[in-house]
Protein backbone atom coordinates (compact mmCIF):
# COMPACT_ATOMS: atom_id res chain seq x y z
CA UNK A 1 0.00 0.00 0.00
CA UNK A 2 1.26 3.47 -0.95
CA UNK A 3 0.52 6.41 1.32
CA UNK A 4 0.99 10.18 1.15
CA UNK A 5 3.07 11.41 4.09
CA UNK A 6 4.21 14.85 2.96
CA UNK A 7 2.78 17.74 0.96
CA UNK A 8 4.58 20.84 -0.33
CA UNK A 9 2.95 23.52 -2.46
CA UNK A 10 3.98 26.82 -3.94
CA UNK A 11 0.79 27.86 -5.68
CA UNK A 12 -1.15 30.93 -6.80
CA UNK A 13 -3.25 30.35 -3.67
CA UNK A 14 -0.12 30.74 -1.53
CA UNK A 15 2.58 28.65 0.06
CA UNK A 16 1.35 25.50 1.78
CA UNK A 17 -2.04 23.82 1.90
CA UNK A 18 -3.81 26.42 4.08
CA UNK A 19 -4.25 28.94 1.26
CA UNK A 20 -5.42 26.29 -1.17
CA UNK A 21 -7.89 24.86 1.34
CA UNK A 22 -9.28 28.33 2.06
CA UNK A 23 -9.68 29.12 -1.66
CA UNK A 24 -11.39 25.79 -2.34
CA UNK A 25 -13.79 26.18 0.56
CA UNK A 26 -14.64 29.78 -0.31
CA UNK A 27 -14.67 29.10 -4.05
CA UNK A 28 -12.28 31.96 -4.64
CA UNK A 29 -10.08 32.23 -7.70
CA UNK A 30 -6.43 33.29 -7.47
CA UNK A 31 -6.57 34.90 -10.91
CA UNK A 32 -5.38 38.46 -11.38
CA UNK A 33 -4.96 40.75 -14.35
CA UNK A 34 -1.73 40.48 -16.34
CA UNK A 35 -1.66 44.18 -16.95
CA UNK A 36 -3.01 46.44 -14.23
CA UNK A 37 -4.05 49.02 -16.84
CA UNK A 38 -6.61 46.51 -18.08
CA UNK A 39 -4.97 46.61 -21.50
CA UNK A 40 -2.99 43.64 -22.72
CA UNK A 41 -1.07 42.90 -25.89
CA UNK A 42 -2.78 39.50 -25.89
CA UNK A 43 -6.49 38.76 -26.23
CA UNK A 44 -6.34 37.42 -22.65
CA UNK A 45 -5.40 39.66 -19.74
CA UNK A 46 -5.30 37.27 -16.80
CA UNK A 47 -3.30 34.54 -15.11
CA UNK A 48 -2.89 32.83 -11.75
CA UNK A 49 0.57 33.80 -10.57
CA UNK A 50 2.51 32.80 -7.50
CA UNK A 51 2.67 36.11 -5.64
CA UNK A 52 5.52 37.31 -3.42
CA UNK A 53 7.70 34.30 -4.11
CA UNK A 54 11.28 35.03 -3.17
CA UNK A 55 13.38 31.89 -3.69
CA UNK A 56 16.16 33.24 -1.48
CA UNK A 57 13.81 32.77 1.48
CA UNK A 58 14.47 29.05 1.02
CA UNK A 59 17.67 28.65 -0.97
CA UNK A 60 21.00 30.42 -1.17
CA UNK A 61 21.64 32.89 -3.96
CA UNK A 62 24.41 30.81 -5.49
CA UNK A 63 22.09 27.82 -5.74
CA UNK A 64 19.19 29.58 -7.38
CA UNK A 65 21.19 31.81 -9.70
CA UNK A 66 21.07 29.57 -12.77
CA UNK A 67 17.71 27.97 -12.03
CA UNK A 68 14.70 28.82 -14.15
CA UNK A 69 11.52 29.83 -12.33
CA UNK A 70 10.17 26.34 -12.98
CA UNK A 71 13.14 24.82 -11.14
CA UNK A 72 12.97 27.34 -8.30
CA UNK A 73 9.27 26.64 -7.70
CA UNK A 74 9.89 22.89 -7.92
CA UNK A 75 12.87 22.80 -5.59
CA UNK A 76 11.06 24.84 -2.95
CA UNK A 77 7.87 22.74 -3.18
CA UNK A 78 9.87 19.48 -2.98
CA UNK A 79 11.78 20.76 0.05
CA UNK A 80 8.52 21.79 1.73
CA UNK A 81 7.06 18.31 1.07
CA UNK A 82 10.05 16.58 2.65
CA UNK A 83 9.94 18.99 5.58
CA UNK A 84 6.23 18.29 6.02
CA UNK A 85 6.84 14.53 5.99
CA UNK A 86 9.46 14.88 8.78
CA UNK A 87 11.64 12.45 6.82
CA UNK A 88 15.31 12.63 7.65
CA UNK A 89 16.77 12.00 4.20
CA UNK A 90 20.25 11.49 5.63
CA UNK A 91 18.94 8.38 7.41
CA UNK A 92 17.18 6.91 4.37
CA UNK A 93 18.73 4.04 2.39
CA UNK A 94 19.79 5.90 -0.77
CA UNK A 95 18.85 3.04 -3.11
CA UNK A 96 15.31 2.89 -1.72
CA UNK A 97 14.23 6.44 -2.60
CA UNK A 98 13.47 7.97 -5.99
CA UNK A 99 12.22 11.26 -7.38
CA UNK A 100 9.85 11.85 -10.29
CA UNK A 101 9.05 15.36 -11.41
CA UNK A 102 6.59 16.40 -14.09
CA UNK A 103 6.63 19.47 -16.28
CA UNK A 104 5.30 20.37 -19.66
CA UNK A 105 7.36 23.37 -20.74
CA UNK A 106 10.19 23.35 -18.19
CA UNK A 107 12.60 26.24 -18.65
CA UNK A 108 11.12 27.80 -21.77
CA UNK A 109 11.18 31.21 -20.04
CA UNK A 110 14.97 31.19 -20.18
CA UNK A 111 14.99 29.94 -23.77
CA UNK A 112 12.67 32.70 -24.98
CA UNK A 113 14.48 35.33 -22.93
CA UNK A 114 17.82 34.38 -24.47
CA UNK A 115 16.33 34.10 -27.93
CA UNK A 116 15.27 37.74 -27.65
CA UNK A 117 18.82 38.66 -26.59
CA UNK A 118 20.23 36.65 -29.49
CA UNK A 119 18.08 38.48 -32.02
CA UNK A 120 18.48 41.94 -30.54
CA UNK A 121 22.10 41.88 -29.37
CA UNK A 122 24.91 39.46 -29.94
CA UNK A 123 25.57 35.78 -29.28
CA UNK A 124 28.23 36.70 -26.71
CA UNK A 125 25.42 38.16 -24.55
CA UNK A 126 23.69 34.76 -24.31
CA UNK A 127 23.59 32.99 -20.98
CA UNK A 128 25.96 30.02 -21.34
CA UNK A 129 23.75 28.05 -18.97
CA UNK A 130 20.76 27.85 -21.32
CA UNK A 131 21.41 24.24 -22.41
CA UNK A 132 22.02 23.22 -18.80
CA UNK A 133 19.31 24.99 -16.87
CA UNK A 134 16.57 25.52 -19.46
CA UNK A 135 16.15 22.03 -20.86
CA UNK A 136 12.97 20.32 -19.82
CA UNK A 137 14.71 17.92 -17.43
CA UNK A 138 16.66 20.48 -15.45
CA UNK A 139 14.28 20.77 -12.47
CA UNK A 140 14.56 17.09 -11.56
CA UNK A 141 18.34 17.51 -11.48
CA UNK A 142 18.10 20.60 -9.28
CA UNK A 143 15.64 18.90 -6.92
CA UNK A 144 17.85 15.81 -6.64
CA UNK A 145 20.84 18.01 -5.79
CA UNK A 146 18.86 20.03 -3.26
CA UNK A 147 17.52 16.89 -1.54
CA UNK A 148 20.46 14.56 -2.12
CA UNK A 149 18.31 11.91 -3.86
CA UNK A 150 20.82 9.78 -5.73
CA UNK A 151 18.93 6.67 -6.77
CA UNK A 152 16.75 8.03 -9.55
CA UNK A 153 15.63 11.49 -10.56
CA UNK A 154 13.60 11.67 -13.73
CA UNK A 155 11.49 14.31 -15.43
CA UNK A 156 8.22 13.11 -16.93
CA UNK A 157 6.94 15.25 -19.77
CA UNK A 158 3.49 14.21 -20.96
CA UNK A 159 1.87 17.62 -21.32
CA UNK A 160 -0.89 18.31 -18.82
CA UNK A 161 -0.75 14.66 -17.73
CA UNK A 162 2.88 15.06 -16.56
CA UNK A 163 2.13 15.40 -12.86
CA UNK A 164 -0.26 12.48 -12.75
CA UNK A 165 2.26 10.33 -14.60
CA UNK A 166 5.13 11.40 -12.30
CA UNK A 167 3.01 10.60 -9.24
CA UNK A 168 1.79 7.39 -10.86
CA UNK A 169 5.31 6.23 -11.59
CA UNK A 170 6.25 6.72 -7.95
CA UNK A 171 3.13 4.75 -7.02
CA UNK A 172 4.14 1.87 -9.27
CA UNK A 173 7.73 1.79 -7.99
CA UNK A 174 6.57 1.57 -4.38
CA UNK A 175 3.77 -0.88 -5.20
CA UNK A 176 6.27 -3.20 -6.86
CA UNK A 177 8.47 -2.89 -3.74
CA UNK A 178 11.33 -1.51 -5.83
CA UNK A 179 11.64 1.45 -3.45
CA UNK A 180 10.22 2.55 -0.09
CA UNK A 181 9.92 6.27 -0.79
CA UNK A 182 9.18 8.39 -3.85
CA UNK A 183 9.20 12.16 -3.92
CA UNK A 184 6.78 13.01 -6.71
CA UNK A 185 5.14 16.09 -8.12
CA UNK A 186 5.46 18.73 -10.77
CA UNK A 187 6.41 22.29 -11.48
CA UNK A 188 5.44 24.78 -14.17
CA UNK A 189 6.12 28.45 -14.90
CA UNK A 190 4.28 29.31 -18.13
CA UNK A 191 3.39 32.96 -17.47
CA UNK A 192 5.70 34.20 -20.20
CA UNK A 193 4.73 36.33 -23.19
CA UNK A 194 5.44 33.76 -25.90
CA UNK A 195 3.52 30.98 -24.14
CA UNK A 196 0.52 33.16 -23.32
CA UNK A 197 0.49 34.41 -26.90
CA UNK A 198 0.71 30.97 -28.45
CA UNK A 199 -2.05 29.58 -26.24
CA UNK A 200 -4.14 32.60 -27.22
CA UNK A 201 -3.47 31.74 -30.85
CA UNK A 202 -4.76 28.21 -30.30
CA UNK A 203 -7.92 29.66 -28.79
CA UNK A 204 -7.84 27.67 -25.57
CA UNK A 205 -7.42 30.60 -23.15
CA UNK A 206 -10.50 32.51 -22.04
CA UNK A 207 -10.70 35.99 -23.51
CA UNK A 208 -13.37 37.09 -21.06
CA UNK A 209 -11.38 40.05 -19.76
CA UNK A 210 -12.30 42.53 -17.06
CA UNK A 211 -12.96 40.11 -14.22
CA UNK A 212 -10.12 37.54 -14.07
CA UNK A 213 -11.69 35.56 -11.24
CA UNK A 214 -14.80 34.89 -13.32
CA UNK A 215 -13.08 34.15 -16.64
CA UNK A 216 -12.68 30.37 -16.52
CA UNK A 217 -16.05 28.53 -16.51
CA UNK A 218 -15.71 24.76 -16.76
CA UNK A 219 -18.74 22.77 -17.92
CA UNK A 220 -20.82 25.96 -18.18
CA UNK A 221 -22.39 26.71 -21.55
CA UNK A 222 -20.71 30.12 -21.73
CA UNK A 223 -17.19 28.69 -21.23
CA UNK A 224 -14.44 29.90 -23.54
CA UNK A 225 -11.22 28.42 -22.17
CA UNK A 226 -8.86 28.37 -19.21
CA UNK A 227 -6.57 30.79 -17.42
CA UNK A 228 -2.91 29.89 -17.20
CA UNK A 229 -1.41 29.26 -13.79
CA UNK A 230 2.05 28.67 -12.40
CA UNK A 231 3.31 26.80 -9.39
CA UNK A 232 4.55 23.52 -8.06
CA UNK A 233 3.34 20.79 -5.74
CA UNK A 234 5.12 17.72 -4.42
CA UNK A 235 4.09 14.71 -2.42
CA UNK A 236 6.16 12.32 -0.36
CA UNK A 237 4.92 8.81 -1.08
CA UNK A 238 5.92 5.89 1.12
CA UNK A 239 5.02 2.28 1.52
CA UNK A 240 2.60 1.99 4.40
CA UNK A 241 5.07 -0.21 6.31
CA UNK A 242 7.83 2.36 5.98
CA UNK A 243 5.55 5.19 7.04
CA UNK A 244 4.15 3.23 9.99
CA UNK A 245 7.60 2.15 11.13
CA UNK A 246 8.72 5.73 11.54
CA UNK A 247 5.39 6.94 12.93
CA UNK A 248 4.68 9.28 10.02
CA UNK A 249 1.46 11.22 9.64
CA UNK A 250 -0.55 9.76 6.75
CA UNK A 251 -2.73 12.08 4.70
CA UNK A 252 -4.29 9.47 2.43
CA UNK A 253 -3.59 6.37 0.45
CA UNK A 254 -2.62 6.68 -3.19
CA UNK A 255 -4.60 3.63 -4.21
CA UNK A 256 -4.36 3.47 -7.98
CA UNK A 257 -2.98 4.86 -11.20
CA UNK A 258 -4.03 4.29 -14.78
CA UNK A 259 -2.70 5.87 -17.95
CA UNK A 260 -2.81 5.40 -21.68
CA UNK A 261 -2.67 7.26 -24.96
CA UNK A 262 -5.52 7.98 -27.40
CA UNK A 263 -3.09 7.73 -30.33
CA UNK A 264 -5.70 9.75 -32.16
CA UNK A 265 -4.77 13.46 -32.41
CA UNK A 266 -2.13 15.76 -30.85
CA UNK A 267 -4.74 18.18 -29.44
CA UNK A 268 -8.26 16.84 -29.91
CA UNK A 269 -9.29 14.10 -27.49
CA UNK A 270 -10.91 10.94 -28.81
CA UNK A 271 -14.54 12.06 -29.44
CA UNK A 272 -16.01 9.05 -27.64
CA UNK A 273 -13.68 9.38 -24.66
CA UNK A 274 -12.29 5.92 -25.22
CA UNK A 275 -8.82 6.61 -23.77
CA UNK A 276 -10.05 8.51 -20.71
CA UNK A 277 -12.56 5.76 -19.96
CA UNK A 278 -9.86 3.12 -20.21
CA UNK A 279 -7.45 5.11 -17.97
CA UNK A 280 -10.18 5.44 -15.31
CA UNK A 281 -10.93 1.71 -15.46
CA UNK A 282 -7.24 0.89 -15.18
CA UNK A 283 -6.78 3.18 -12.18
CA UNK A 284 -9.83 1.71 -10.41
CA UNK A 285 -8.62 -1.83 -11.13
CA UNK A 286 -5.19 -0.99 -9.68
CA UNK A 287 -6.95 0.32 -6.56
CA UNK A 288 -9.20 -2.73 -6.32
CA UNK A 289 -12.25 -0.44 -6.43
CA UNK A 290 -15.41 -0.22 -8.50
CA UNK A 291 -17.25 2.77 -9.93
CA UNK A 292 -19.79 2.73 -7.10
CA UNK A 293 -16.99 3.43 -4.60
CA UNK A 294 -16.15 6.85 -6.08
CA UNK A 295 -17.14 9.83 -3.91
CA UNK A 296 -15.53 12.64 -5.89
CA UNK A 297 -13.86 13.25 -9.24
CA UNK A 298 -11.47 16.14 -9.80
CA UNK A 299 -11.85 16.56 -13.55
CA UNK A 300 -9.38 17.91 -16.07
CA UNK A 301 -12.12 20.51 -16.73
CA UNK A 302 -10.14 23.01 -18.77
CA UNK A 303 -13.27 24.94 -19.78
CA UNK A 304 -12.50 24.57 -23.47
CA UNK A 305 -15.55 23.72 -25.56
CA UNK A 306 -14.13 20.37 -26.64
CA UNK A 307 -12.49 19.12 -23.44
CA UNK A 308 -15.51 19.54 -21.18
CA UNK A 309 -17.87 18.00 -23.71
CA UNK A 310 -15.66 14.99 -24.46
CA UNK A 311 -14.69 14.56 -20.80
CA UNK A 312 -18.40 14.36 -19.96
CA UNK A 313 -18.84 11.70 -22.65
CA UNK A 314 -15.87 9.78 -21.23
CA UNK A 315 -17.23 9.98 -17.65
CA UNK A 316 -20.60 8.67 -18.81
CA UNK A 317 -18.87 5.83 -20.58
CA UNK A 318 -16.65 5.00 -17.60
CA UNK A 319 -19.18 5.47 -14.80
CA UNK A 320 -22.26 4.02 -16.54
CA UNK A 321 -25.40 4.27 -14.42
CA UNK A 322 -23.46 5.99 -11.61
CA UNK A 323 -22.39 8.91 -13.86
CA UNK A 324 -25.10 11.37 -12.84
CA UNK A 325 -24.64 10.66 -9.12
CA UNK A 326 -20.88 11.12 -8.81
CA UNK A 327 -19.85 14.68 -7.86
CA UNK A 328 -17.38 16.03 -10.41
CA UNK A 329 -15.62 19.38 -10.26
CA UNK A 330 -12.88 21.33 -11.95
CA UNK A 331 -10.70 23.42 -9.65
CA UNK A 332 -8.79 25.06 -12.52
CA UNK A 333 -10.73 28.35 -12.24
CA UNK A 334 -9.38 28.62 -8.67
CA UNK A 335 -5.74 27.68 -9.24
CA UNK A 336 -5.38 28.31 -12.96
CA UNK A 337 -4.32 25.65 -15.42
CA UNK A 338 -0.79 24.78 -14.36
CA UNK A 339 -0.26 22.64 -17.48
CA UNK A 340 2.14 19.85 -16.45
CA UNK A 341 1.78 20.73 -12.77
CA UNK A 342 -2.04 20.70 -12.73
CA UNK A 343 -2.21 17.12 -11.59
CA UNK A 344 0.17 17.81 -8.71
CA UNK A 345 -1.93 20.59 -7.22
CA UNK A 346 -5.10 18.60 -7.94
CA UNK A 347 -3.65 15.56 -6.16
CA UNK A 348 -3.39 17.85 -3.14
CA UNK A 349 -6.97 19.02 -3.75
CA UNK A 350 -8.09 15.37 -3.56
CA UNK A 351 -6.23 14.74 -0.29
CA UNK A 352 -7.74 17.92 1.17
CA UNK A 353 -11.23 16.80 0.09
CA UNK A 354 -10.63 13.47 1.85
CA UNK A 355 -9.06 14.96 4.98
CA UNK A 356 -11.57 17.81 5.40
CA UNK A 357 -14.71 16.04 4.15
CA UNK A 358 -15.86 18.42 1.46
CA UNK A 359 -16.43 18.62 -2.29
CA UNK A 360 -14.40 21.40 -3.95
CA UNK A 361 -16.62 23.48 -6.23
CA UNK A 362 -16.62 24.27 -9.94
CA UNK A 363 -16.78 28.03 -9.63
CA UNK A 364 -18.17 30.39 -12.28
CA UNK A 365 -20.72 27.79 -13.34
CA UNK A 366 -23.60 29.87 -14.67
CA UNK A 367 -25.40 28.16 -17.51
CA UNK A 368 -26.15 24.45 -17.97
CA UNK A 369 -24.88 22.97 -21.22
CA UNK A 370 -26.86 20.03 -22.69
CA UNK A 371 -23.49 18.53 -23.67
CA UNK A 372 -22.25 18.69 -20.07
CA UNK A 373 -25.08 17.26 -18.03
CA UNK A 374 -23.45 15.66 -14.98
CA UNK A 375 -23.15 16.86 -11.36
CA UNK A 376 -20.41 19.51 -11.28
CA UNK A 377 -20.64 20.83 -7.68
CA UNK A 378 -21.63 24.29 -8.99
CA UNK A 379 -20.11 27.38 -7.38
CA UNK A 380 -20.16 26.34 -3.72
CA UNK A 381 -18.16 23.75 -1.82
CA UNK A 382 -20.33 21.04 -0.29
CA UNK A 383 -19.77 19.23 3.00
CA UNK A 384 -19.49 15.53 2.27
CA UNK A 385 -17.51 12.62 3.56
CA UNK A 386 -15.05 11.71 0.80
CA UNK A 387 -13.44 8.28 1.01
CA UNK A 388 -12.40 7.80 -2.62
CA UNK A 389 -11.35 10.62 -4.94
CA UNK A 390 -10.17 10.48 -8.55
CA UNK A 391 -7.90 13.01 -10.19
CA UNK A 392 -7.99 13.12 -14.00
CA UNK A 393 -5.61 14.96 -16.31
CA UNK A 394 -4.97 14.65 -20.02
CA UNK A 395 -2.05 15.95 -22.06
CA UNK A 396 -1.30 16.92 -25.64
CA UNK A 397 -0.78 13.84 -27.76
CA UNK A 398 -3.82 12.16 -26.22
CA UNK A 399 -2.15 11.19 -22.95
CA UNK A 400 -4.70 10.28 -20.31
CA UNK A 401 -3.71 9.83 -16.69
CA UNK A 402 -5.84 9.09 -13.64
CA UNK A 403 -4.96 8.78 -9.95
CA UNK A 404 -7.13 7.31 -7.20
CA UNK A 405 -6.82 8.53 -3.60
CA UNK A 406 -8.48 6.77 -0.68
CA UNK A 407 -9.05 7.70 2.95
CA UNK A 408 -6.78 5.79 5.31
Amino acid at each position, binding site marked *: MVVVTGIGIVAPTGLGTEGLLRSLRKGESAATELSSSGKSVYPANHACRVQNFNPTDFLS*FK*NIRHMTRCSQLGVVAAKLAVQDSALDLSQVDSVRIEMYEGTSIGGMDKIFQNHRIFLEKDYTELDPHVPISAFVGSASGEIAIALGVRCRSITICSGSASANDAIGLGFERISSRSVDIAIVGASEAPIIPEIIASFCRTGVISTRNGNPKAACRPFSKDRDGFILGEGAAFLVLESREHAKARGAHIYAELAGYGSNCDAYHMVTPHPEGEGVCFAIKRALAAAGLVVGDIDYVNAHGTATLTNDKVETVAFKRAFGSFASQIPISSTKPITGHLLGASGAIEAVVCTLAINHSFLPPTINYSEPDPDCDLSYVPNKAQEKDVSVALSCNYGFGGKNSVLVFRKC
Partner: protein
Amino acid sequence: MNRDRDINTSKCEEIFDQLKPIVIGLLKIPQNPEFKRYPEITMQTDLIDDLGVDSVETVDLVVSIEREFKIKFDFKEAASKRKIFQIVEYIAQLKEHK
Protein backbone atom coordinates in the same frame (compact mmCIF):
# COMPACT_ATOMS: atom_id res chain seq x y z
CA MET B 1 55.36 54.36 4.13
CA ASN B 2 51.93 55.39 5.36
CA ARG B 3 51.48 57.62 2.36
CA ASP B 4 52.29 54.66 0.02
CA ARG B 5 49.79 52.49 1.87
CA ASP B 6 47.12 55.20 1.54
CA ILE B 7 47.80 55.47 -2.17
CA ASN B 8 47.58 51.67 -2.55
CA THR B 9 44.37 51.54 -0.53
CA SER B 10 42.81 54.27 -2.55
CA LYS B 11 43.91 52.56 -5.80
CA CYS B 12 42.35 49.31 -4.62
CA GLU B 13 39.12 51.09 -3.69
CA GLU B 14 39.04 52.67 -7.13
CA ILE B 15 39.56 49.28 -8.78
CA PHE B 16 36.88 47.74 -6.54
CA ASP B 17 34.39 50.44 -7.53
CA GLN B 18 35.12 49.71 -11.19
CA LEU B 19 35.03 45.92 -10.72
CA LYS B 20 31.81 45.72 -8.69
CA PRO B 21 29.39 46.65 -11.51
CA ILE B 22 31.16 44.17 -13.80
CA VAL B 23 30.53 41.33 -11.34
CA ILE B 24 26.95 42.45 -10.67
CA GLY B 25 26.18 42.78 -14.38
CA LEU B 26 27.77 39.53 -15.44
CA LEU B 27 26.21 37.46 -12.69
CA LYS B 28 22.91 39.36 -12.88
CA ILE B 29 22.70 39.96 -9.16
CA PRO B 30 19.47 41.81 -8.37
CA GLN B 31 20.15 45.17 -6.75
CA ASN B 32 16.62 45.71 -5.58
CA PRO B 33 16.75 46.66 -1.87
CA GLU B 34 13.57 44.59 -1.37
CA PHE B 35 15.62 41.46 -1.96
CA LYS B 36 17.45 41.53 1.33
CA ARG B 37 18.88 38.05 0.96
CA TYR B 38 20.82 38.70 -2.21
CA PRO B 39 24.55 39.01 -1.54
CA GLU B 40 26.26 42.35 -1.40
CA ILE B 41 29.55 42.48 -3.23
CA THR B 42 32.36 43.37 -0.82
CA MET B 43 36.12 42.84 -0.78
CA GLN B 44 35.51 39.64 1.19
CA THR B 45 32.98 38.13 -1.25
CA ASP B 46 34.05 34.67 -2.42
CA LEU B 47 33.22 34.06 -6.08
CA ILE B 48 32.52 30.36 -5.60
CA ASP B 49 31.20 30.08 -2.05
CA ASP B 50 29.04 33.21 -2.09
CA LEU B 51 28.15 33.61 -5.74
CA GLY B 52 28.42 30.12 -7.22
CA VAL B 53 30.60 31.24 -10.12
CA ASP B 54 31.45 28.31 -12.40
CA SER B 55 34.18 27.71 -14.99
CA VAL B 56 32.19 29.20 -17.89
CA GLU B 57 31.58 32.39 -15.95
CA THR B 58 35.20 32.58 -14.83
CA VAL B 59 36.20 32.91 -18.49
CA ASP B 60 33.55 35.59 -19.07
CA LEU B 61 34.64 37.44 -15.95
CA VAL B 62 38.31 37.40 -16.94
CA VAL B 63 37.50 38.65 -20.46
CA SER B 64 35.32 41.45 -19.08
CA ILE B 65 37.98 42.52 -16.55
CA GLU B 66 40.72 42.48 -19.19
CA ARG B 67 38.57 44.66 -21.45
CA GLU B 68 37.64 47.09 -18.69
CA PHE B 69 41.12 47.52 -17.19
CA LYS B 70 43.09 47.00 -20.42
CA ILE B 71 45.28 44.34 -18.85
CA LYS B 72 46.11 40.72 -19.67
CA PHE B 73 45.37 38.06 -17.07
CA ASP B 74 47.42 34.94 -16.64
CA PHE B 75 44.59 32.37 -16.65
CA LYS B 76 46.33 30.01 -14.24
CA GLU B 77 47.06 32.83 -11.84
CA ALA B 78 43.54 34.26 -12.24
CA ALA B 79 41.92 30.89 -11.50
CA SER B 80 43.52 30.85 -8.05
CA LYS B 81 41.81 34.14 -7.05
CA ARG B 82 38.51 33.45 -5.36
CA LYS B 83 37.98 36.49 -3.17
CA ILE B 84 37.21 39.91 -4.61
CA PHE B 85 40.12 41.52 -2.75
CA GLN B 86 42.52 39.00 -4.32
CA ILE B 87 41.28 39.96 -7.79
CA VAL B 88 41.50 43.66 -6.94
CA GLU B 89 45.10 43.27 -5.77
CA TYR B 90 45.95 41.24 -8.88
CA ILE B 91 44.47 43.93 -11.14
CA ALA B 92 46.44 46.61 -9.23
CA GLN B 93 49.63 44.59 -9.67
CA LEU B 94 49.08 44.10 -13.41
CA LYS B 95 48.24 47.78 -13.91
CA GLU B 96 51.41 48.80 -12.12
CA HIS B 97 53.60 46.60 -14.29
CA LYS B 98 51.89 47.53 -17.53
